[in-house]
């Protein structure tokens, strides 16, 4: 058994190159290392110029997402051992512009996230100090979709987002739907103006990979399909019973 592991990193250095280049590193094979430990070793011991993002190291902050052997993963949550034997290839998240090495530009996602108004909207004067009691059933309606950590792995796995960058995307729609399903919220109509437009839910062709790669089991594909169904039923209701629109 080899005592080293070969890690290939797809690097991009805008001051030197106009294309990405592959650089190989040898790191010691250590049983309890996650991929992020190996990258930190490269940064600390082998090549201080390597750029990437990370923070919590415990699958909460969502900043260390990268492509590992072609799959978008949180590098703090995947053990090096699980990819052996063989070379491990690390690339920046797909479908995003690359700023440098493994650092992607996330401005587009942040704008889309804000556009779906992921906060509770009220149209009355509900006093802030008053307690809003919510039953476990009401909580279960949206809890799954509230677990998103904005890691953007779902955008990286989504071929629709890769082909149509205007697509609102899985995480933003799931978070919009999270508030739509919250019984304290009154902003469905306002929020759905964005979610149900052409670049919203209707762009989704249900490839389903967003849910498969989600490290928090948010299931964005389900959030999108449920909203498609609700929107369609509401359209038929308003068509068949126009007097209810008044």
């Amino acid at each position, binding site marked *: 058994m080899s005592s080293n592991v070969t890690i290939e990193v797809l690097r991009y250095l805008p001051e030197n*190159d106009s294309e990405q280049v592959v650089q190989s590193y040898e790191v010691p094979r250590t049983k309890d290392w996650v991929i992020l430990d190996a990258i930190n070793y490269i940064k600390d011991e082998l090549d201080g110029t390597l750029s990437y993002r990370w923070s919590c190291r415990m699958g909460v902050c969502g900043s260390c997402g990268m492509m590992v052997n072609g799959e978008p993963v949180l590098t703090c949550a995947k053990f090096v051992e699980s990819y052996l034997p063989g070379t491990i290839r690390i690339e920046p998240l797909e479908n995003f512009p690359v700023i440098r090495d493994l650092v992607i530009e996330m401005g587009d996602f942040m704008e889309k996230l804000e556009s779906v108004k992921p906060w509770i909207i009220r149209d009355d004067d509900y006093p802030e100090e008053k307690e809003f009691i919510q039953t476990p059933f009401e909580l279960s309606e949206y809890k799954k979709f509230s677990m998103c950590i904005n890691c953007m792995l779902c955008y990286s796995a989504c071929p629709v987002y890769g082909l149509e960058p205007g697509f609102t995307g899985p995480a933003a729609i799931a978070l919009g739907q999270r508030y739509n399903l919250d019984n304290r919220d009154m902003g469905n109509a306002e929020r759905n103006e964005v979610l149900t437009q052409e670049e919203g839910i209707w762009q989704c062709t249900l490839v389903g990979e967003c849910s498969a790669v989600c490290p928090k089991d948010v299931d964005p594909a389900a959030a999108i399909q*449920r909203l498609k169904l609700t929107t369609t039923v509401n359209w038929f209701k308003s068509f068949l019973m126009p007097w209810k629109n008044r």
Partner: protein
Amino acid sequence: MSINPDYSKYHPKWFRRSMPIFWWTRKWVHMKFILRELTSVAVAYSAILLLLIVRALNQGSEHYSEVTAMFKSPVILILHTVMFLFLIFHSVSWFSLAPKAIVLRIGKKRIPDQATIGLNFLAWFVVSSVIVWFI
């Protein structure tokens, strides 16, 4: 440091990768997705075929016999076998995705995804049986 005209200190040039036209050949799940989308042609074909059969039935036994005789040609038989397999693949893959869109409950308890899938297959079987019984 070499000079790259696309790069300035405070505004580095981003690297953008475009999706190759054959992106769907890289992973089996993507190929399965494309196959599911393409086999919708078989669904449309089957729907039109069913309407033609109903129309022939409506026009009398002579017309119906003409249509069924046409189905016995080897080329049509092969075509229909392929279309049937595509139809099965399309239907099974779509019904398996039903729990993503449909949330069924008994009282406040959500029924398991497998039960939702099972109910879709049951409805499929019942509707198909009714059509077979009529034809």
